[in-house]
């Protein structure tokens, strides 16, 4: 798998890394980095997925969303482009900061086409909402070591029950979701 992704990205001189995130669960599907990079795909993939999802919702509320949209971030010594591939994946491409933007756009377009052929057509498993809400909490909660206990206290649901989020009842998921929203200070969970 890794070899195939490496084959696809080979020959792009300014490319430092590629992270493919499977949606909607924001889990790392595949990644490639230059040997000298110390990035860990698992650490960043979920944030890229969430970022693109938030961006999509924001654009939709402005009536400005299109499936071709991409996010470009210029930061420090990196230029990052995030793009949705169909509805199943988000790809994040990290380029050298001084690479010409025009060339980057060209590379992104070509890579997106190649990746669409390379990535499987996924029939996403409909994972229980309780699982996804719990994962979202653990990803973003401050003091994550205490996050589940805080939810237990807020909801009255025992910790042991919360530790099996796939088995939560509809009512319990609703309580969980409210607690997570309040802990994170969000009006809604876009998951």
């Amino acid at each position: 798998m890794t070899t195939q992704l490496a084959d696809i990205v080979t020959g792009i001189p300014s490319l430092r890394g590629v992270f493919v995130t499977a949606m909607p669960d924001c889990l790392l599907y595949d990644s490639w980095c230059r040997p000298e990079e110390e990035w860990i795909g698992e650490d960043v993939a979920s944030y890229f997925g969430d970022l693109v999802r938030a961006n999509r919702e924001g654009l939709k509320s402005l009536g400005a969303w299109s499936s071709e949209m991409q996010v470009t971030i210029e930061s420090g010594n990196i230029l990052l482009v995030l793009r949705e591939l169909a509805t199943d994946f988000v790809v994040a491409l990290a380029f050298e900061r001084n690479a010409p933007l025009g060339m980057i756009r060209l590379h992104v377009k070509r890579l997106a086409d190649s990746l669409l052929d390379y990535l499987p057509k996924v029939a996403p498993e409909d994972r229980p909402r309780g699982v996804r809400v719990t994962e979202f909490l653990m990803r973003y909660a401050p003091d994550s070591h205490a996050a589940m206990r805080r939810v237990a206290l807020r909801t009255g649901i025992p910790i042991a029950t919360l530790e099996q989020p796939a088995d939560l009842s509809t009512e319990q998921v609703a309580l969980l979701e409210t607690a997570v929203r309040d802990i994170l200070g969000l009006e809604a969970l876009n998951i």
Partner: protein
Amino acid sequence: MDFAKLRHYLPEQDLMLLGKTPVVYHCQHFNLFLDQTIDDALGPTDGAELRLRAAHEAAYPLIKSVCAAFGASTPAERAHIAERLFSVMGHGTLQADATATGGQALGHHLHYGYAWREKYGERVRRLHPVDGFAAGYAAAAAEVSANLPCGSLVSKETSCIALRAPHCEFKIIPAATGVECAARAPVEAEEYLANTRRSFGGKHETQITEIADGLKQFTAGVAGDERGLVQAFGVLVTMHLTGYYNRISYDAVKEIQRVAPQSVGVLEDLLRESGHVCVFRTFGGILLSPEWEAMVGAPGEDPEQVVVGCLAIARALGFGHWTLAEFAPGKRLVVRTSSTYESADYLTRYGTATSPNEYFFQGAALAIMQLAHRVSWRSRPELTSEYYDELFRKGVPWTLKQTSCIACGDDVSEVIISAKD
């Protein structure tokens, strides 16, 4: 005004007072986590209300007694002393402009709001003001200044830096007629002393006493800077009122026992966690500091010496006469004390407890075991939130049991930390 002269300790009990009022030193990690736990338990409205009332009730007798100690005789003098006291204790700058008919207060660099923004502001959006303590203090300060009984005024935070406002604002108004008075009789030096037990020593007693005495001398000169904050040992330190901590903790437990008994265990666990994070970050920060290295020597890899240092720190911060009863590296720690700031307050306010409930003492003992075994002192790690999360996300390798408790009527309080099988 030399506030430091008002600070003293109950002899042989290592409980600290400012004038007649029981106080301790606590960091922002403890303060924020404890307040958050109260709001998690009771919800943002009732939680904030309890915090506000507790602050009001605890601050009033302190401000009144300090004003009396300095011979303040006019409203302006009393308002000035209340303002200075707040800053000296490390809570920020709070300027109240209020009379018997109400008014307002303005807060800058308030400990809770400032620390919340520093610690959590980039990660989560807060929906409710955080400075319940300052709100209660502002009402109490205005009452003392105007020579009113406690409960005459109420205060509400209307603008908060934790909600990204430029500063904090409080509205102070007369309490509605018939509203429950905010204050019960204060727990002061006499009650504090009456609820300690006969003092005793433990292993390394001489060394612990010497270090604690040195630290007490050092902290005597610690006071808020021009912001009214105490930034030391890698934390933001406050001198705080035990009456505040104890009321919010024990009232919340009582309320959860009443309305959601199935959640009492997790509430107690989170109350312990506030002690755990406090000791890990504050005691750890002290052990890592150049000041500690100069006074005691840099911590090495001997866990027993780390425990000794921690017990001395606990005494200097006013937590009680914590002693080392037993220690087997990697296996077992037994901490015993004749006094804790929790039991002294509990016995006065609530009577005898039916089960051990010195949550801070419990969490602190566990954290001492962690510091002794899970930190590589020679590498001088930064004790960040990420470091803490990483270390404790998968739980801890120890079990904790409080085997006796002064609040239950026992002669000592004792916590045993043992390695998990």
